[in-house]
């Protein structure tokens, strides 16, 4: 069974340009997460979906970040316009439920470099 698939793996853009990341979770996993991981830091939650509903987006900078999960499966995270400080790894994860002890399966991440 394929794990969580993310693309692109790497993206280099100039500041003020838009960028989008795509995530395909594990089949049957209703809960999907987007995390931000800066160099040398642990992941920080950006948004959590239960099926197609964003149930926690309190940490998502809504002035430039947006996300969607149409049909409750794949998800896209967009940044427009990108800033230098957005350079980081964007991790997608999924789980079978939102219970705190649920296993999160992470994708390999999308590494963004903003020049």
């Amino acid at each position, binding site marked *: 069974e394929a794990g969580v698939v993310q693309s692109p793996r790497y993206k280099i853009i100039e500041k003020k340009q838009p960028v989008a990341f795509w995530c395909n979770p594990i089949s049957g996993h209703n809960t999907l997460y987007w995390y931000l991981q800066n160099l040398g830091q*642990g992941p920080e939650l950006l948004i959590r979906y239960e099926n197609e509903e964003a149930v926690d987006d309190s940490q998502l900078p809504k002035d430039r970040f947006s996300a969607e999960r149409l049909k409750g499966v794949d998800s896209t995270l967009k940044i427009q316009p990108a800033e230098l400080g957005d350079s980081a790894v964007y991790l997608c994860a999924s789980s079978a439920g939102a219970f*705190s002890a649920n296993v999160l399966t992470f994708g390999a991440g999308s590494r963004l470099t903003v020049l």
Partner: protein
Amino acid sequence: TQLLKQSPQFLSIQEGENLTVYCNSSSVFSSLQWYRQEPGEGPVLLVTVVTGGEVKKLKRLTFQFGDARKDSSLHITAAQPGDTGLYLCAGAGAGSYQLTFGKGTKLSVIP
């Protein structure tokens, strides 16, 4: 916000040595997870602990959850180069779904 402090931040040891890394907080967690992350990959779950005082073993790795459920430790016996990676702890508060991650301990095991 529940903060998780991990120590040491960096650890470099020789193959065959033992080591312990720590995860501490002033908050109580209903559950705590340990992940290992290799360069260019996402974190991979190693273990989940939910009961105060719980000890779990995974081959050469021993995980302990503190009695008060505020701290945890990971002990590796006879470290091998394949243990190299970033070890992250993540905790969830009572009644919360949200995991808070520590900054991690970066372990290098030198052959």
